């Protein structure tokens, strides 16, 4: 223990009244103090990486007057000796809601009914979740308890905003000292805050993530319009506020790594840049996060290990959750190493008290101390453009600093004082005078000598007398008002001693075992243990910490390294060409992601040569209608048209069903919006490039599509008796929706072309594309009347309906479909699940095919999609289609329907190398995909899959053993839980964006996945 002498005790609140607000009347005698203090002999950490010994810090009026070495100390300054102590800038939390009122809803949603409009009264935006007009400084109320909690962690200031809504308005910079709001608000409007969450808004729109994204984009356009001509047409407080916030930094809250990528795209589109509040999983997609060039705010709420003592319960914990437990603490360090600037926040911590503990865990896992300090001081200040007033101990900045007993991240370091705007707060008093440090001493009591060991645990010492190797005598110890007293038992007799001590010795008087008044003395003999050795041991321990691999995607069956295209020669296979050659025995060469040669006895050099004798090789299956790999909502069914939303914005690369689809020979899919409204959302057309990001999965140059829907879903017929408000409720109304929207879109197009000012409307833009045949429609449909109707609507408005999906009564009007030029994408044999499918027949596909309609079979189902080859075979079973024709229904025909047949859908030289090797005739239930290639990259291999299973087993076991170890070592655990796997269908309409409490009354166990 280093001897510490501090000649004063700082009162809990040392000073009040600095910068007292001048407008307030004074009651009593005016007590102005200028607060001129000099802190001398300190180890001063002016900013991360700028440390000086024997330095002086001088503050006055709550500001820093001077800081450094060899600077003059004003004579009239109150002097504090900081010998042996460290001074750092106080921390800043960038993502706080300190002092903000609890968010409340503007009203309530009508009982069991959709809420179409905002409940907010006043000249605000139509959507309740867009609240740019909220200003934190106007709502801020200082909160003594909350401020103290943060101060105790070393924080001196926070950026605070109300965590509610998609646009949350502006934040303020406030300090955590005492004083009226007038004093503690350091800056009124600092940043604009946004999120993909509508918070307390009860309004139905948006219910999905893609709706959120569309709403943000539309708001940008509306604001642009408002700034120009809109303001002359209407008063809109929200849009005005939105424009006022434009020049400020924008902070965007995200809930996972993919949301960062999604929001970064919006920022780019509108020439903006966001600072992202991350969720702590950024390490899972580090490169892509870095490529956004965005700074981050990172939580350090690392998960606790799972309690895996029950083998059955432990089985339910997902591998990704287990891996994240292990790797989450590496996130800050990984970000720093990647050169991504980031700040740290206490947000997300269940107990804020864990902040320093978790920060040290992050440091143990690779975060440098310098980066840690920067993330709490200079970086937040700089990101929020307030580095001239806070963040370091430079002259003129606010006097926010902490005093510690040793370097802050050293073992046993404590924050003893936190000075905020010149107010000193004592978190923990320094020991008034140090006593014996760690070591072995000789205690001489009268004539008897004892071996006394002193050890320090945190702030309290432990004194033990070693009689011999086996016997320890505990010594009672007290040290107060500079008097040390010791007492212990020696063979049943109490020895009581009092006296004085310094760091290495003590002496005094007392009673010996016999009750004689004697003198005693403590002298040092040797050090306890070599400290260096101890540290080395610790270092060693650290380096032995084994960590699992980061895999892409961060799921079971993910890959350590993304697979790349290789030249692959598949020899002696039965090739289902889907071309006029039909089924042939030949070789096929894949190079540069394309099919480069087909023929017998190909003699080409290749990275991989596969003898596929007896195997069947086909082009990859294309699922025209899928809802896998979609994040947070498949429907934006809150309005009868949601043409502005797009599944392409919410493709989820982290869905294990992508891999499962590959194992069924599926290489591409149209990820469709649901069928809750007549005009749905735009599609995401993807290849199943497992491990790649959503943007890399989207097929470049694919024709744009949109989902329409007819019938019971859009009429809300099966949503219960409460859904009778939203238009349309009948098939008659459905026609009106289309006629009305296309009429409006036509007028919109006219206005747009006229050159007159107009408000860019994303919904109308999309519909205009349809009218101009630049975007194609795939329409959920069942009964013949509505199918016929929509073809007539399309004909009236001058476009062709591209695809009818489901189209279960297509067989009744196959002739009309053929005449119109529409294709069909149907189920093989589904029926009887609702009234509009009572006339569905499994012969539908065969009849449509016979009638010359391009017909595909789709899944609409995460499970069935990996068996689409079997669904195709049902074309043979029901209706006796030829095997080749049946096979085309899941390959070439969907490619044609998606306008992708120029590069996909058949084995043809020059087409994409999306190829599957099957164990036998692919239409057979016994056929298994053995290898699946997408763009020439092998994404599935049955043999490798077996290896992966083994790796998963080993990895789970390793993690479970490690968790058991942590539990034994006393770590707090969390109960096992399962990851929820969403399986969307067309009619999934849950609100995924709000925070309204709609308690689940449904028992969800893994018996019932949905």
């Amino acid at each position, binding site marked *: 223990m280093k001897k510490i002498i501090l000649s004063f005790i700082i009162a809990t609140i040392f000073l009040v009244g600095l910068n007292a607000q001048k407008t307030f009347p004074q009651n009593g005698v005016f007590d102005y103090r200028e607060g001129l203090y000099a802190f001398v002999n300190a180890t001063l950490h002016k900013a991360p990486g700028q440390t000086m010994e024997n330095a002086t810090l001088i503050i006055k009026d709550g500001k820093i007057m001077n800081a450094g070495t060899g600077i003059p100390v004003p004579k009239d300054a109150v002097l504090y000796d900081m010998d042996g102590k460290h001074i750092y800038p106080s921390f800043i939390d960038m993502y706080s809601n300190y002092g903000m009122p609890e968010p409340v809803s503007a009203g309530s949603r009508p009982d069991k009914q959709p809420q179409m409009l905002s409940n907010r009264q006043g000249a605000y935006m139509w959507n309740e979740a867009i609240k740019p007009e909220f200003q934190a400084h106007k709502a801020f109320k200082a909160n003594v308890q909350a401020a103290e909690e943060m101060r105790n962690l070393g924080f001196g200031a926070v950026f605070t905003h109300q965590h509610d809504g998609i646009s949350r308005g502006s934040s303020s910079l406030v300090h955590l000292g005492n004083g009226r709001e007038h004093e503690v608000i350091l800056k009124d409007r600092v940043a604009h805050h946004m999120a993909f969450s509508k918070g307390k808004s009860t309004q139905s729109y948006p219910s999905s993530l893609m709706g959120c994204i569309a709403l943000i984009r539309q708001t940008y356009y509306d604001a642009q319009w408002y700034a120009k001509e809109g303001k002359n047409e209407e008063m809109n407080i929200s849009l005005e506020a939105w424009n006022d916030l434009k020049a400020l930094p924008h902070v965007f809250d995200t809930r996972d790594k993919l949301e960062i990528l999604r929001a970064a795209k919006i920022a780019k589109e509108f020439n903006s840049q966001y600072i992202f509040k991350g969720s702590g999983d950024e390490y899972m997609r580090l490169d892509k996060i870095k490529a956004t060039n965005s700074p981050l705010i990172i939580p350090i709420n690392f998960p606790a290990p799972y309690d895996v003592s029950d083998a*059955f*319960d432990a089985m*339910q914990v*997902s591998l990704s959750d287990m891996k994240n437990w292990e790797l989450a603490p590496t996130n800050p360090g990984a970000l720093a190493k990647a050169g991504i600037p980031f700040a740290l926040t206490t947000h997300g911590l269940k107990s804020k008290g864990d902040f320093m503990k978790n920060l040290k865990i992050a440091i143990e896992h690779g975060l440098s101390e310098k980066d840690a300090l920067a993330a709490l001081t200079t970086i937040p200040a700089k990101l929020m453009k307030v580095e001239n007033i806070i963040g370091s101990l430079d002259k003129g900045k606010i006097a926010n600093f902490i005093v510690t007993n040793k370097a802050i991240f050293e073992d046993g370091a404590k924050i003893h004082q936190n000075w905020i705007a010149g107010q000193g707060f004592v978190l923990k008093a320094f020991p008034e005078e140090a006593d014996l440090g760690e070591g072995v001493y000789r205690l001489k009591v009268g004539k008897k000598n004892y071996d006394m060991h002193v050890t320090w645990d945190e702030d309290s010492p432990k004194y033990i007398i070693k009689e011999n190797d086996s016997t320890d005598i505990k010594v009672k110890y007290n040290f107060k008002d500079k008097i040390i007293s010791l007492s212990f038992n020696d063979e049943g007799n109490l020895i009581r001693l009092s006296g004085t001590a310094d760091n290495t010795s003590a002496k005094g008087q007392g009673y010996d075992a016999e009750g004689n008044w004697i003198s005693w003395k403590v002298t040092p003999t040797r050090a306890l243990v070599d400290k260096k050795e101890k540290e080395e041991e610790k270092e060693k321990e650290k380096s032995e910490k084994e960590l699992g691999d980061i895999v892409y995607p961060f*799921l*079971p*069956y993910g890959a350590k390294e993304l697979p790349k295209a290789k030249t692959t020669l598949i020899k002696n296979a039965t090739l289902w060409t889907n071309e006029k050659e039909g089924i042939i025995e030949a070789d096929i060469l894949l190079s540069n992601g394309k099919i480069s040669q087909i023929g017998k006895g190909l003699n080409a050099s290749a990275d991989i040569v596969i003898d596929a004798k007896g195997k069947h090789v086909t082009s990859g299956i294309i699922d025209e209608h899928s809802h896998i790999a979609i994040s947070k909502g498949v429907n934006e069914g809150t309005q009868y048209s949601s043409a502005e939303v797009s599944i392409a914005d919410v493709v989820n690369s982290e869905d294990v069903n992508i891999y*499962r689809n590959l*194992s069924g020979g599926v290489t591409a899919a149209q990820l469709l919006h649901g069928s809750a409204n007549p005009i749905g959302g735009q599609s995401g057309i993807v290849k199943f490039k497992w491990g790649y990001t959503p943007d890399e999965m989207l097929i470049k140059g694919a024709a744009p599509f949109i989902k329409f829907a007819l019938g*019971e879903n859009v009429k809300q*017929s099966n949503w219960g008796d409460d859904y009778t408000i939203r238009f349309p409720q009948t098939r008659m109304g459905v026609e009106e929706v289309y006629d009305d929207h296309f009429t409006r879109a036509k007028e919109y197009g006219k206005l747009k072309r006229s050159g007159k000012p107009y408000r860019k409307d994303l919904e109308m833009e999309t519909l205009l594309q349809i009218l101009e045949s630049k975007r194609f429609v795939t329409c959920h449909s069942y009964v013949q009347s509505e199918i016929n109707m929509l073809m007539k609507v399309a004909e009236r408005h001058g476009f062709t309906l591209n695809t009818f999906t489901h189209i279960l009564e297509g*067989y*009744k009007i196959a002739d009309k479909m053929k005449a119109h030029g529409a294709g069909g994408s149907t189920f093989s044999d589904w*029926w*009887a*699940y*609702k*009234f509009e499918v*009572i*006339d569905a*027949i499994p*012969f539908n596909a*065969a*009849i449509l095919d*016979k*009638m010359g309609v391009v017909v595909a079979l789709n899944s609409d189902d995460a*499970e*069935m999609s990996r*068996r689409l080859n*079997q669904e195709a*075979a049902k074309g*043979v*079973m029901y209706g*006796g*289609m030829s*095997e080749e024709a049946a096979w085309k229904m899941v390959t070439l025909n969907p490619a044609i329907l998606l306008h992708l047949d120029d590069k996909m859908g058949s084995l043809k030289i020059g087409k994409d190398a999306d190829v599957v090797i099957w164990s036998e005739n692919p*239409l*057979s*239930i*016994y056929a298994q995909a053995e290898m699946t290639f997408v763009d020439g990259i092998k994404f599935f291999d049955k043999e490798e899959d077996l290896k992966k299973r083994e790796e*998963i087993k080993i990895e789970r076991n390793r993690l479970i053993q490690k968790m058991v170890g942590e539990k034994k070592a006393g770590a707090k655990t969390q*109960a*096992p*839980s*399962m*990851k*929820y*796997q969403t399986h969307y269908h067309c009619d999934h309409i*849950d609100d*995924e*964006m*709000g*925070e309204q409490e709609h*308690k*689940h009354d449904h028992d*969800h*166990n*893994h*018996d019932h*996945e949905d």
Partner: protein
Amino acid sequence: MRHTIFIIINLLVWNISTAQQTLTKKQNDLPIIIMNGTAHLGNGDKIENSVITFENGKIGMIAPANTFKLDLSKFQVIDAKGKDIYPGFIAMNTQIGLVEVDAVRSTRDFREVGTFNPSVRALIAYNTDSKVTPTIRSNGVMLTQIVPQGGRISGQSSVMKMSGWNWEDAQYKADEGIHLNWPAAFRRGGWWAAPGPITKNKDYDEQVKAIKDFLDEAQAYNEKTNVEKVNLKFEAMKGLFDGTKKLYIETNFAKTIMESVLFTKEYGITPIIVGGKDAWQITDFLKEHKVMIVLKKTQDLPVREYDDIDQTFKTPKILKDAGIVFSFSLDGAWEQRNLVFQAGQAVSYGLDYEAAIEGLTLSPAKILGIENTAGSLEKGKDATIIIAKGDILDMRTCIIEKAFIEGQEVDLDNKQKALSRKFTDKYGVDIDHD
């Protein structure tokens, strides 16, 4: 003319057109003989070149064709050369006849209100005129166990024939079992806007206790010699305690399977597990306790993200290898048309072909306690028979040509074929309606 022959191939020329006709009443008076087909007996065996005779609804003889002589003039002869013969399939745990259109409430008759409903009987709601039934029958299902849903105890199931004039006529085994939905071990927390993780069900112990209380009370009630006030719920439970009814417990998680089995053992009952997705993890336990499984669909996604991607496909083989009796099954009503493919999928993943057939025939019969009369092609059992061209488990080749329930030929036409014919006639195109 009377002549005795060795049954040899090509004796009679069989053509498709005759195959599709229903035998006339007069012809029906004679016993039927099916010759030369491959008979899959349902018990794991097959006879390549077989002869099967039946009369009065019962199988008279089944044997290899070359082992004896018969007088063919006393039979109506069906030549099944190149074809496969199976016992009629049994669809377990279905709502056939209890629902016509899933989304139309007025057509749903399988879920009653209440927690403990053992007295509710599926039987009487069985709609023999359902338009759905023939579409399943034409894919080989001849018997079905119809089961009420919902609550803790949903009610009583019955085994029904897939044809009949009314439910009395169609019943095969009435009120054969009680269905218990075991409490979930894990439940989803949070609410749907912010889906929480799926965590342990905190009410689990309480829910199990409620089952225990109910069973204890029911057991005690059924010991009464003099019942003053009749409790229909408890009366319905009587068969469980005297062994005349089966107890079906729906649960999937390994731990709850074990807990529910040990729980019911206390009452001297060996339950049948319905669902059993995780049964493959505890085969030793299942074998030790002689638990039979009605396995939920094999063409399903794995339960857990990290599970083997083909876990559901290969579970049947694991159970078979461990010597556990299981049947295939599928949820719902119209979906049962794909029951056979649950077995086909399992064959693709290693299950022996005949074992797969067993899982559609004799094993469900054993589970239902009807194995003495149904489930396999054996002398004395019901002549409930399917004749198929091609591999019945593979949609690529499967065509069912003929079927009999208790010796009566079944109409394999259905509403869907009729609709198809109507429109192909309109267009003047031709497709295959087999």
